[in-house]
């Protein structure tokens, strides 16, 4: 069986085989790894890979898996069958892109520090978002000009709301 996963913007193919005597083995990047496993509970997997024991905790949200093993966290996205590889994975949190600055957390806008049409520099503070009683300053990801401001001070915003839109500075 072949599985396509994505972790940190990198795609991985995991091929799992079961031999005639019931032994499992996985192939990842040309490495062959024999393994065996039992489910301890719906969230907990006892997994022996190459004779090394791991207790693995898992949480599945749709096509995203969160895997914990000995203090290490990782997020693995299931890309499904081959034809789907490269498609955006559902449920991925929107990060601020080139042109839109999203709210990095839910909270209340305390202060917008810029005005429409104002030129801004890379890392210039754009707005202050209060969440969990702390002020968080959100900075511009690049140089540009403020094209739109979609919220005002005191507005409650959700994670991923587009707060400010940037456009390129006109070149002269």
């Amino acid at each position, binding site marked *: *069986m072949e*599985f396509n*996963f994505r*972790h*940190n913007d990198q795609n*991985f193919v*995991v091929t*799992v085989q*079961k031999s005639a005597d*019931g032994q*499992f083995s*996985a192939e*990842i990047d040309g*490495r062959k*790894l024999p*393994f*065996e*496993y*039992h*489910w301890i*509970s*719906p*969230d907990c*997997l006892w*997994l022996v*890979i190459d004779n090394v024991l*791991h207790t*693995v*905790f*898992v*949480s*599945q*949200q*749709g096509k995203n*898996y*969160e*895997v*914990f*093993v*000995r*203090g*290490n*966290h*990782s997020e*693995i996205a*299931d890309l499904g069958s081959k034809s789907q590889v490269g498609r955006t994975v559902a449920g991925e949190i929107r990060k601020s892109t080139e042109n839109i600055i999203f709210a*990095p*957390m*839910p*909270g209340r806008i*305390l*202060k917008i520090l810029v005005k429409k049409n104002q030129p801004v520099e890379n890392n210039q503070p754009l707005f202050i978002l*209060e*969440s*969990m*009683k*702390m*002020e*968080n300053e959100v900075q511009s990801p690049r140089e540009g000009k403020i094209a739109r401001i979609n919220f005002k001070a005191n507005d409650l915003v959700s*994670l991923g709301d587009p707060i400010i839109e940037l456009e390129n500075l006109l070149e002269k």
Partner: protein
Amino acid sequence: MVKKIKKILVANRGEIALRVVRACRELGIQSVAIYSDADRHALHVLAADHAVNIGSPEPKESYLNIKKIVECAKSLKCDAIHPGYGFLAENYHFAQQCEKEGLIFIGPNSRALRLVGDKLRSRQIMAEAGIPIIPGMNSADSNIKNLQDFARKVGYPVIVKASGGGGGKGMRIVHKPSELVSSIEAGRREAKSAFGDDTVYIEKYLEKPRHIEFQVLADNYGDVIHLFERECSIQRRYQKIIEESPSSALDVKLRTEMGEIAKKVMVISHYNNAGTVEFLLDTSKNFYFLEVNARIQVEHPVTEMVVGIDLVKQQIRLAGGEKLKLKQKDLNQRGHAIECRIYAEDPENNFYPSIGRIHLVKEPVGPGIRCDSGIYSGWEVPFHYDPILSKLIVWDENREGAVNRMASALSEYVILGIKTQIQFLMEVIKHPEFRTARLHTHFIKDHFSDWRPKEIGDYLPVALIASAIIKMEKPVGSKETVSKSALSPWQLFGKWEFMSSIKK
């Protein structure tokens, strides 16, 4: 006069509310939890004997609403209110209101609370009594020019502090004159929203100091003891993240000297109940009085582990009018304890708060491990309050053992669904400078300013194979939304049946 306390209203939420509820239960005292609309399913509500909805999620409508809380305590015939830390814990109006209504405020009397809460006045009084203080302004000032002049006089760096506050709120370190005005503005805004008081003052900022504080207990009859020190030098964004006791920076002589000064500070303030006297210790081992924290503190467990005293129970007994039974000469420190604060913060995203549903929690257990927690699998972390989720505390015979035990316990602490800074804490604990106890309050800034979460590396194949197994075969009960439907892991066990792998 000793009054038998029969019922306590816990005016707080999260892990500290739970801590107080448990202390009540052990003392045979009934507990009343209050909760905002956002905390209907919070653990402290589930644990108490009674629970009362107190209003909307905004703190000023609920956990900061003095009138509602006092009315609630009276209507449920409580004898006392425990304020926990944060919220109303250091609000003297609240303590006064309790006193007026015949309720015992489990904390200092309102006059002492008012005095030590006024950071400037208490600085002045302590200076007059010969207690060493850091050079700073003697009064708050709203005139920017005066603040600028003072900063120039003592020399940069300086620190802007809220006169009404603590816990890092409203605090800003300023290195250059050009940053002063914006820092004062930000400090004022934060102070206003946290304490309702936007006055600030300026102090000289020490380079590489250690934060050392002394736990004090005082009864209502003037007897005062200290329970030694805690070192809280590991801070991020002015918030303590790792605390320990004892401090490696103190020898017997310095410890005794600072302990005596701490007691003197409390005597001068006419303080009663539990409190903490904070000091900064500079690189030449001069110490300076910083402030009194007039409450039970987040980091109180490290003292409990090392001294063997339950501080919350002591608070309740002292508030009921019992005399201190402990004598200074009988107290000593045994072994070493460390606490890590677990915050709902995303280290990959600038340590921004991480909010959402916790899919799975598995807390570490074992010898010398204590977890004071307010979370459970399936609970949704609200964004209205402090991001603290829990505190992991370990004890061992010595510091080296405690450091190793903490590293091991952190590696077993599973929280899935939201982000925490557990991995960051693990790396701080393992840092050679931490292991050798070369600590100061700029430790994180100096050693971890360009820190990035490390790649999963060797464990990636494990995670990938685990993912393949999830796809191949899901255990019974593990629908896609398994944790969404589950309030607790043990509820799931009813539905769960063991499935051997596809071997058969």
